[in-house]
């Protein structure tokens, strides 16, 4: 037997268990018994805990179709991110939104359900921007197709993007089609030292107005970290212009997956994620500078604090929002996500009532009663 060229451990087993999954959902609908949808279970910490019978998606794995020339891949939700990204890399392609992995078992379904995106997000787009279509298991246990495998498709409502980030509260993502992109021809990362946050934000704002190949910009403890990706010529020229120390490439995966030392919490602290309009000045909150890590050119800030409420108020004042990323670290919280405006909440509840009448899909995962 000849071994495949890549490590077999990173290949996704080809298993379609959609029929069994549909049956389990239909049963849950019949008996009005809530389901806890689980892939690799590496993101269970995120959001509110769900009580229910486990709907195990991990077995539902494999790449269904992948045509590099079409720039489209369709993959079952339980496929491990590691396996999917390895398959794309073989063809010199990638998921441009850099989904974070919080463990080897992290699946693509979990990545889309949580809708989280990595350091490239401000330049390339978010998870939802690359979702072209999906098969969704509805409350009655039917496997339905929305969107498709083409780049442009405006027929019907965009159910696939609605499901992205909804954390399984509106339906079960069975498989997902993505737009993929070629890996950049060249990449280089650099570190500029002794630069305060105000200067860093000013620099990023100035650079941001030019068509430079920047695809990562972070700041922590007076160092500005930049990633350049693009054509050989522009990456080289930009690097020469910006100078700085060469930064190891794995800096960005460590930041993406929270493996960087910064993400170690002190007792009583929780990790918060502040999402802010570009070019927001440092927030007026009582947090040690060492406990803040700026990503997304300042639009996404990781903050370790014991006083999340003050942070949340400051973010809302600045036109953004704050999420308690590790609720367990502060003994749990009723609202890890910023509470919704009453009108927006009303339409969330109506959508939930329409698509999940008996509240069987991850009830309460995002908000109480949703």
């Amino acid at each position, binding site marked *: 037997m000849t071994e495949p060229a890549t490590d077999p451990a990173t290949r996704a087993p080809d298993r379609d268990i959609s029929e069994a999954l549909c049956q389990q959902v239909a049963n849950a609908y019949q008996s009005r018994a809530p389901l806890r949808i689980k892939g690799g279970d590496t993101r269970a910490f995120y959001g509110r805990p769900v009580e229910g019978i486990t709907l195990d998606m991990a077995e539902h794995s494999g790449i269904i179709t992948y045509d590099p020339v079409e720039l489209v891949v369709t993959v079952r939700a339980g496929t491990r991110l590691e396996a999917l990204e390895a398959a794309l890399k073989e063809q010199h392609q990638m998921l441009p939104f850099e989904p974070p992995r919080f463990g080897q078992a992290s699946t693509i379904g979990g990545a889309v359900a949580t809708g989280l995106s990595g350091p490239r997000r401000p330049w390339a787009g978010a998870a939802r921007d690359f979702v072209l279509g999906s098969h969704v298991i509805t409350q009655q246990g039917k496997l339905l197709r929305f969107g498709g495998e083409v780049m442009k*498709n405006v027929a019907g409502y965009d159910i696939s993007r609605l499901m992205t980030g909804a954390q399984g509260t509106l339906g079960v993502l069975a498989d997902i089609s993505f737009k993929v992109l070629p890996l950049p021809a060249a990449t280089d990362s650099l570190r500029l030292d002794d630069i305060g946050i105000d200067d860093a934000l000013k620099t990023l704002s100035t650079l941001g107005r030019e068509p430079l190949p920047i695809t990562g910009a972070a700041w922590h403890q007076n160092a500005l970290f930049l990633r350049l990706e693009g054509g050989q010529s522009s990456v080289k020229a930009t690097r020469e212009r910006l100078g700085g120390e060469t930064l190891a490439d794995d800096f960005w995966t460590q930041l993406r997956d929270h493996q960087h030392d910064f993400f170690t919490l002190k007792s009583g602290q929780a990790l918060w994620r502040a999402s802010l309009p570009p070019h927001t000045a440092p927030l007026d909150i009582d947090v040690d500078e060492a406990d803040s890590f700026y990503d997304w050119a300042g639009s996404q800030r990781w903050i370790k604090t014991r006083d999340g409420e003050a942070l949340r108020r400051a973010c809302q004042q600045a036109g953004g929002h704050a999420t308690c990323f590790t609720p367990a670290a502060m003994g749990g919280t009723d609202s890890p996500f910023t509470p919704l405006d009453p009108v927006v909440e009303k339409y969330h509840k109506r959508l939930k009532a329409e698509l999940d009448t008996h509240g069987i899909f991850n009830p309460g995962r995002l908000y109480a009663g949703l």
Partner: protein
Amino acid sequence: MNILYDARLDGELIDRDKREVLDALEHAAPTLTLLSREEDLRPFECDGLAAYRVLPMLVALPENLEQVEALLKCCFELGVPVVTRGAGTGLSGGALPLEQGVLLVMSRFNKIIDVDPDARLARVQPGVRNLAISEAAAPFGLYYAPDPSSQIACSIGGNVAENAGGVHCLKYGLTVHNVLRVDVLTIEGEHMTLGSEAFDAPGFDLLALINGSEGMLGVVTEITVKLLPKPTVAKVLMASFDDVEKAGRAVGDIIAAGIVPGGLEMMDKLAIQAAEDFVRAGYPLDAEAILLCELDGVEADVDDDCETVRRVLERAGATDIQQAKDEAERAKFWAGRKNAFPAVGRMSPDYYCMDGTIPRKELPRVLKGIAALSEESGLRVANVFHAGDGNMHPLILFDANKEGELELAEDVGGKILELCVAAGGSITGEHGVGREKINQMCSQFQADEITVFHAVKAAFDDKRLLNPGKNIPTLARCAEFGAMHVHNNDLPHPELPRF
């Protein structure tokens, strides 16, 4: 099947007396401009799909939010349908009025509220023209990326409603990828902000849902768009082919070489001739197809990419490859493509533009199918194609003054869309379903899927007052449409009554 609103198939509408509605609206919003005389209503009887015309009961031209809110609350109370319209350039009849309804025209909401070069975003009202945003951003070296061909005239509110595209979608995305935030009024007159100036917002992604929802879920009253730095250079290559299939394969080869062009367009022989006659773009009249490939970015990268693309095109069998020498020639190359629709319009009294999308690899097969339909019907079809992202615009040439030709053109159009669906594609890439493709929705989606769409609609507008009869067909309509397309004696939706 009549394409105009059919209460039997599209659902009953409340028939209010015009005077009663006018009085109620004048009372609810005393300063609101309302048009009610036939001669004033006439200019609003159709959008860019001029084959379908209906006089609305009333036209409202609000100038401020309070007026829109009062109008919506009043219509909600009375059960009067509301069709929202922007610049009226839509090609699918999405803003086609209803006899029993109010046409809410947002064109007076035309202010650019703010351009913020540091945050690289612009806040605009829905009636602002697409191109005006890029013009306002230009002094800062920024622009708004989506560029539908109608960008001189079309408004950003309509772009959101249709999730408009353009020739640069493959690299820069559709409207949904470039809008950060929208303010919406619900049919009940409530204010809602979806999205955020930050890159995300808590809760469901209702911003993604509202993009492309064709005015069925709410009325967009303000939009915040993302601005991008203008690429330093853009260069365009034009390649000629003696065979359409070869040109189609070359498109895939360019992508396979790891290049994502800013624009990648294809035209067939009839479209080339039409464009050349009209604007003298310098297109080769003997070619069966041409490809226009635009590469943009930083000069050094663009030069490298041009070299790579040139080699790919040579290998793919291009008979001639020209690179625009300068900005003037680049503009000339594009002028032919951008004027392809009016150019075809000169060749024929009428034309009907389709908007199907397909996986690129299906291009040769679908083009063959289109050629067969053209031959069978006797109607000429010119093909213009956003080749990079698989979005086809076959233009069916006909003469509406000839008995039965409009119906024949519609029939050919419908069959082309069904070809696209069968090839794994979609009935619409960027023009929207509107009224035009309401029947073809039944080919692309099953009854259960359409039921989910109705559930989403019900969450926002359970009285079905926003743009009824557009975008999502009723199951009764699909049953009727299906009855005309019975395959192997399998009657779709046997549970539904037939009309």
